[in-house]
C-alpha cells in the first residue's frame, strides 16, 4: 500500500496553492490533514500527479467569532475545533471525529471539501447554515452550505479551488448525537441540531449522499418531550436511507429518530446564552 508517484508543491500562500492547482490542470490535489486523501492514495484509488501541500500557509488557523458567526481558517484542526468554546456545537461534533492522532491532523476545511456523507462537520455546517469561502483562479467566492455538498464525496469546490475559510453561525441552542459502530468510527447516523431564535434546523448525516436537512420549521412553542418526539418521528419519516454493511434502511431510520431525539433533548437543555 504505497502511493503512486507525484510531484510535491509546498504552497506558501493561497494564491500559490491555487496557481499550482491550475498548473496541474486537473491532476492536482490539495493536501491538508491528509486523513482521507492519503489512505485513498495508499490504496491507489487516487493517484494525483501533483500534491499541493497547504499545511504551511500562514494565517489559516484562526478561530474567532464576529457578529455571532464563528470564522475559522481552513487549517483549523479537528483538535482545535474540539477544544474551543466559541462554538459548542462544532466542538461537540469534532470530538466525535476519529482519535487524537486523526484530530491533530485533520482539518475543518478538508473535511468539508471531502464531503463524506457520514462525517460530522458537513452536518454541522448544514445545521448552522454556514458557508465556506473558496479561492480559485478567478478570485474568491462564497458557497453556502446548501450548495456546497453536491453528492457523496462531491462538493462544489473545483479541482483548481481551495476552501480558505469557514463561517459557522453560532446557534442559540444546539445538540449533536451520533451512533457509530466503534469509538471513533464514521457515523452510521449522526444528527446535528441547531436553534437560531425560533428557527430549528435538524441535519442528519449518514442517511443520504449529502447531509440531510429535515424540514423542521419554526418552533412555535416549547421544545418539550412531546414536541421532541414528534420532530424525531418527522425526521425518521423524512429520510430515505440506504442499507449497507453497518445498518439496514430500517435500522438507519430508527437511528435517525433516536439520534434526533437525543440531539433535540440537548437543544432543549441548552442554557440560554449570555448576550455577547
Amino acid at each position, binding site marked *: *500500500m504505497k502511493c503512486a508517484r507525484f510531484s510535491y508543491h509546498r504552497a506558501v500562500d493561497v494564491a500559490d496553492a491555487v496557481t499550482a492547482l491550475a498548473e496541474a490542470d486537473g491532476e492536482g490535489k490539495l493536501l491538508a490533514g491528509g486523513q482521507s486523501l*492519503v*489512505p485513498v492514495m495508499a490504496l491507489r484509488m487516487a493517484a494525483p500527479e501533483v500534491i499541493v501541500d497547504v499545511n504551511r500557509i500562514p494565517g489559516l488557523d484562526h478561530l474567532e467569532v464576529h457578529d455571532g458567526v464563528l470564522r475559522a481558517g481552513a487549517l483549523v484542526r479537528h483538535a482545535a475545533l474540539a477544544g474551543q468554546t466559541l462554538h459548542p456545537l462544532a466542538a461537540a461534533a469534532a470530538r466525535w471525529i476519529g482519535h487524537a492522532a486523526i484530530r491533530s491532523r485533520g482539518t475543518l476545511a478538508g473535511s468539508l471539501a471531502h464531503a463524506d456523507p457520514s462525517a460530522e462537520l458537513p452536518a454541522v455546517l448544514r445545521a448552522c447554515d454556514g458557508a465556506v469561502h473558496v479561492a480559485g483562479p478567478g478570485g474568491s467566492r462564497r458557497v453556502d452550505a446548501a450548495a456546497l455538498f453536491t453528492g457523496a464525496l462531491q462538493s462544489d469546490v473545483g479541482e483548481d479551488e481551495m476552501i480558505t475559510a469557514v463561517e459557522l453561525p453560532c446557534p442559540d441552542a444546539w445538540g449533536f448525537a451520533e451512533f457509530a459502530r466503534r469509538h471513533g468510527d464514521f457515523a452510521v447516523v449522526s444528527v446535528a441540531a441547531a436553534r437560531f431564535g425560533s428557527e430549528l434546523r435538524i441535519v442528519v448525516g449518514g442517511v443520504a449522499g449529502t447531509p440531510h436537512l429535515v424540514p423542521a420549521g419554526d418552533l412555535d412553542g416549547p421544545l418539550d418531550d412531546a414536541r421532541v418526539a414528534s420532530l424525531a418521528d418527522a425526521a425518521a419519516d423524512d429520510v430515505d436511507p440506504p442499507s449497507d454493511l453497518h445498518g439496514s434502511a430500517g435500522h438507519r431510520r430508527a437511528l435517525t429518530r433516536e439520534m434526533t431525539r437525543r440531539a433535540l433533548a440537548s437543544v432543549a437543555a441548552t442554557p440560554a446564552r449570555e448576550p455577547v
Partner: protein
Amino acid sequence: MRITLTVNGEQHRLTVEPRRTLADALREDLGLTGTHLGCEHGVCGACTVLVDGEPVRACLMFAVQAEGCAVATVEGLAEPDGTLHPLQEAFSVCHGLQCGACTPGMLMTAAHLLAVEPDPDRERIRAEMAGNICRCTGYVGIVDAVASAAAALAQDERP
C-alpha cells in the same frame, strides 16, 4: 527532495521521494524500525509518533511534510542510560504488551495522553487509546499500564 528533520533530538538530512511516508522514512531511511506499520491506511494506530508534540499517524504523513519538525518515536522514550520511561515500565509490569507490534503506537499515544491529561480515569483511557488496535491483550493490561504510569508520573511530579 532534500529534507531536514529532528528525530528524538537528533537532526537528520534525508533525500526522499515525495510519496515516501514519514513511517517509511523512519523505518527504512533512518533504521528506526520501532515504529510499526499495521494497516497503512490510518486505522490501526501502530505507526503513531509525535510530530512537534502532537500524535500523528506516520503512515498518513509524507516525510516531506515533516521538514523542520521534531519527531518523537518509541526509540526515544527511555532515558539515554536505558532507564525505561514510566509507561514502558508499566506496560511490562501490567503485561500491556504481548507480541509488541502495536506497542510502539500504544506507548506514543499514551505518552501524549498523559502529557495533556495527567490523571485520566479508566474510561477516559479506554476512550483515548481507542485509536490503537491491539490483537493480543484484550486491552486489560494496556489500560492497567496507562493508569499505573499516570500514577507513577504523578508521584514523580510531587515535590
